[in-house]
């Protein structure tokens, strides 16, 4: 946990994770605001290259040529979305660069910044190394990402990781609940095509694809920062669940874990218990039909819910269901709540 938090800026302007209050500011404001980076690099060519790379990624960049200047800038201008420090930045002796001192003050600077803000996102650039494990650094900095390949893929990927981790930490409770429910309903809509996967699997994959997509914006699910993080993840989940469905063939054998289902009273049972025929197609049909029929049965005493469900089953859009906006929202709420209760094994005693 400590390792993960180290990538994330949890400075006080954001909500404490777990609070039920709306976030201050919400993830949208992160997207809207300019991202800032502090770049500490003494090699002018590299400085120009890295500054350009950061600017290309949408960062407003402040630069420093040595560790003292870097620390001074950090103290005055923090927090930054990311601090990129060359492992080999030199130390100043008050007059100029102290060439007699060991030229590895990037690590010292990273330590100093960590002391000021333990959760500041930091990247160490160690481009003379071929392996991040070879970069000498104290144990407490082993979790800091190390840039060893100057190619844009690697830098973009590290930056995306820091930004995504930060976005995860500032998600409010309500945003997290929306994501969780969205994922659960999407997976339930897949029926057998989910192949035993859960809403958590869907959400986890959406995040993985976001991070992998950072390396190739044309190919992956790169998070465009103009889009709210929750909306990005829901878009990713929509696309992934559709792809799961496309990959599924109806003839796939059942997993045992797929078979237990819950009836209208929340009791778990196997659909094959009461099947007279041992023919696989009979079981299959029963399972698939079961979910839809049970949902209709649950709402048999709720005419508006039935109207909505039948309308949706017949392919009507929400505004074609014959319910005004308020009734529509209230009906959706009843359906959601009952279905969630049913999944949780709770029995709803009241009809509405």
């Amino acid at each position: 946990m400590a390792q993960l938090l180290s990538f994330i800026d949890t400075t006080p302007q954001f909500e404490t994770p777990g609070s039920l209050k709306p976030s201050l500011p919400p993830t949208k404001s992160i997207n809207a605001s300019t991202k800032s980076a502090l770049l500490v690099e003494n090699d002018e060519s590299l400085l120009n290259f890295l500054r350009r790379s950061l600017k290309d990624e949408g960062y407003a960049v402040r630069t420093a040529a040595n560790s003292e200047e870097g620390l001074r800038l950090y103290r005055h201008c923090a927090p930054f979305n990311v601090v990129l420090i060359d492992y080999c930045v030199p130390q100043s002796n008050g007059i100029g660069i102290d060439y007699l001192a060991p030229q590895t003050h990037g690590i010292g600077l990273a330590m100093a910044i960590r002391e000021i803000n333990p959760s500041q996102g930091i990247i160490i650039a160690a481009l003379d190394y071929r392996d991040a494990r070879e970069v000498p650094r104290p144990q407490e900095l082993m979790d800091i990402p190390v840039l060893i390949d100057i190619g844009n893929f690697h830098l973009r990927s590290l930056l995306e990781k820091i930004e995504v981790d930060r976005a995860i930490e500032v998600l409010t409770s309500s945003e997290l609940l929306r994501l969780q429910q969205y994922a659960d309903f999407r997976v339930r809509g897949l029926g057998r095509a989910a192949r035993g996967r859960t809403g958590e699997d869907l959400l986890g994959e959406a995040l993985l694809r976001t991070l992998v997509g950072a390396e190739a914006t044309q190919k992956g699910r790169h998070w465009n920062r103009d889009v709210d993080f929750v909306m990005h993840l829901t878009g990713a989940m929509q696309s992934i669940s559709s792809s799961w469905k496309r990959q599924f063939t109806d003839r796939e054998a059942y997993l045992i874990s797929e078979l237990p289902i819950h009836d209208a009273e929340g009791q778990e049972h196997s659909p094959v218990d009461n099947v007279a025929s041992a023919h696989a197609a009979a079981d299959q049909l029963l399972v698939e039909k079961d979910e839809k029929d049970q949902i209709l049965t649950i709402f048999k005493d709720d005419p508006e819910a039935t109207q909505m469900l039948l309308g949706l089953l017949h392919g009507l859009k929400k505004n074609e269901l014959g319910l005004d906006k308020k009734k529509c929202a209230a009906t959706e709420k009843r359906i959601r709540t009952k279905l969630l209760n049913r999944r949780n094994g709770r029995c709803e005693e009241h009809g509405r």
Partner: protein
Amino acid sequence: MADKKNYDELERIMNQLADSVLELSDAAILAEVTATGADPQEKAERTRFVLRRSSKALEAVNKRLWNLGHSLNPKGRWHEERGYSNSCRDCGLSISFTTATNEIWGNALVGPCPESAQHAIRKREASGK
């Protein structure tokens, strides 16, 4: 055919419910989860944990791969039975991992990527020295 129809119908309902969740206000979703008897904060933190877990899993995989010069292929295949399956974008060797247990396995872990030199631009080249 009947099976497919049932799928589509169920999917239509569930997708509508999924979309409707996104329209709820903060207070409404908290109230709704509370009404189901669940602890909204606990549920929310569980979801945050799922996101963190995925991020950490990929971080571990990337560290292992980068150290060997491999890179994940964004267009790779995903989510096989035992976990996520992918391959090195450069040499095609396989890599699989799970987010739940952080296990990593595959041929890409056996040795350095034979193709990685093509993609690594070293500091000296970049700085024009």
